[in-house]
């Protein structure tokens, strides 16, 4: 069964943008605590550009939508999150190339995105980066039956909370060492919004 159409994929990006813009200040505040205070700005800027690009373009496949998003994120976000999200979406696009987006295909795509993030950023699980969220989402998708996509939300929320107690070992927050404890990782939070948008969009089709 196709779970994500081209229109839904576009809508996924639009919903992501809405959430990221809405939570721009929250993300920036998180990044001010343990980073350089631009994560909300970066994500809002990047996804707004994605929406601008996507809304005016016709796409044949979901892979094309995601590839377009990947290129835009890479070119417009910058910082650490730009290449990471750019790579994640690009690898997802490659994984979905020439396929219908079934549940299985999507899980494969998340795996590919996860791998892309790791290749680019060299993070391991538990180092307090957005990799942690992708890792847990992938793990969940491999462990659960595919009709409970909403479960992603709980998984994300749990791991986001877990990042609070982690000592950062990658990215800017790692400079703080022990002092990075007690704060949620901003990139994990933005990844949550993207997955939340994904879950919303699956519903959206039904509505």
């Amino acid at each position, binding site marked *: 069964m196709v779970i994500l159409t081209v229109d839904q994929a576009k809508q996924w990006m639009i919903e992501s943008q809405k959430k990221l813009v809405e939570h721009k200040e929250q993300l*920036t505040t998180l990044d*001010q*605590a*343990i*980073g*350089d*205070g*631009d994560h*909300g*700005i*970066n994500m809002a*800027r990047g996804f707004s550009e994605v929406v601008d690009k996507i809304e005016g373009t016709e796409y044949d496949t979901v892979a094309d939508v995601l590839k377009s998003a990947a290129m835009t994120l*890479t*070119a*417009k*976000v*910058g*910082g*650490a*999150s*730009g*290449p*990471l999200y750019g790579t994640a979406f690009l690898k997802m696009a490659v994984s979905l190339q020439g396929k219908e987006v079934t549940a299985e295909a999507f899980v494969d795509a998340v795996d590919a995105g996860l791998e892309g993030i790791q290749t*680019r*950023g060299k993070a391991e699980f538990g180092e307090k980066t957005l990799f942690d969220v992708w890792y847990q989402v992938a793990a969940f998708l491999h462990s659960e039956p595919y009709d409970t996509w909403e479960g992603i939300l709980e998984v994300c929320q749990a791991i986001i909370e877990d990042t609070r107690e982690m000592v950062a*070992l*990658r*990215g*800017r927050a*790692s*400079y*703080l*060492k022990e*002092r990075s404890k007690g704060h949620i990782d901003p990139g994990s939070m933005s990844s949550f919004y993207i997955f939340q948008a994904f879950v919303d969009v699956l519903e959206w089709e039904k509505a």
Partner: protein
Amino acid sequence: MKKVVNHPDKVVQDMLDGFVKAHHTSMKRIPDTTVIIRQEAPISGKVGLVSGGGSGHEPAHAGYVGKGMLDAAVVGEVFTSPTPDQVLEAIKAVDSGAGVLLIIKNYTGDVMNFEMAAELAEAEGITVDKVIVNDDVAVEDSTFTTGRRGIAGTVLVHRVAGAVAETGASLAEVKQAAEKVVRNVRSMGLALTACTVPAAGKPSFTLHDNEIEIGTGIHGEPGIERVPLQTAEEMSERLVEKILADKDYTNSEVAIMINGMGATPEMELYIVYREVERLLHKHGIAVYRAWVGEYMTSLEMAGFSVTLLAVDHEIKQALSTPVETIAFR
């Protein structure tokens, strides 16, 4: 937020616009990019030097474009690494066939974006190599983590690599010279006040009236320790001792850079210079040359960093060649 801006989202574009207008005789902007290049780039037979990073560090990096230093500076959003496509444009614009060296400050974002650009450029048949500057001893150097950051010492890497490139040296030779500087340069900074990213609208951290933050980065990141306000002598000593604990400069000759973070009066920077030189003499370290001023800032942050570079004949030679940039002599 009290800033002289038109709109927080327009600061980089407006600044670049002003910059190329003010310096149009020596500098130009690649159309539709955030890349500033030397008017005469690409220079036949010369290795191209590209650096850059987030904006908000002015005069870094566009102020270092010119004879004896960089061929191009790639400008990102405030405190945000520029994207691969922009870096790629810079590489293409300065490559004369002799190859291009990327001088990257060691931040996850900068490294990833510049590396992606390098991959793209190689795919287009351009020879690209890189050096990663990590002079900030406030951060522990460990292979398990991100490692030390690149801060003001980067300017001296630009300078030496630029001087060597100007002689017509090969990409490998220029890279070697740059890496020698990286190995021999150490810095550390502190902040008296935080700074405000225009689009964020509020300061990155808050310090009490009698508090300073030791070991801050150049992006308004919090540092490693918060201590009560001290005298210039004590602050200087703190930074110098930490640098010397990381690298032993005893009996060497050094170049010094006292770098203001943005809001610290030059008066105070010279007071720091006085203290730093005295401390170094105590350690038997001789001073070859000094730069005191704003070289790698963090918007309107108050504070300063100290940079030491051990110089040998080759580095001294490079530092004494002609240099024609907006911000460095």
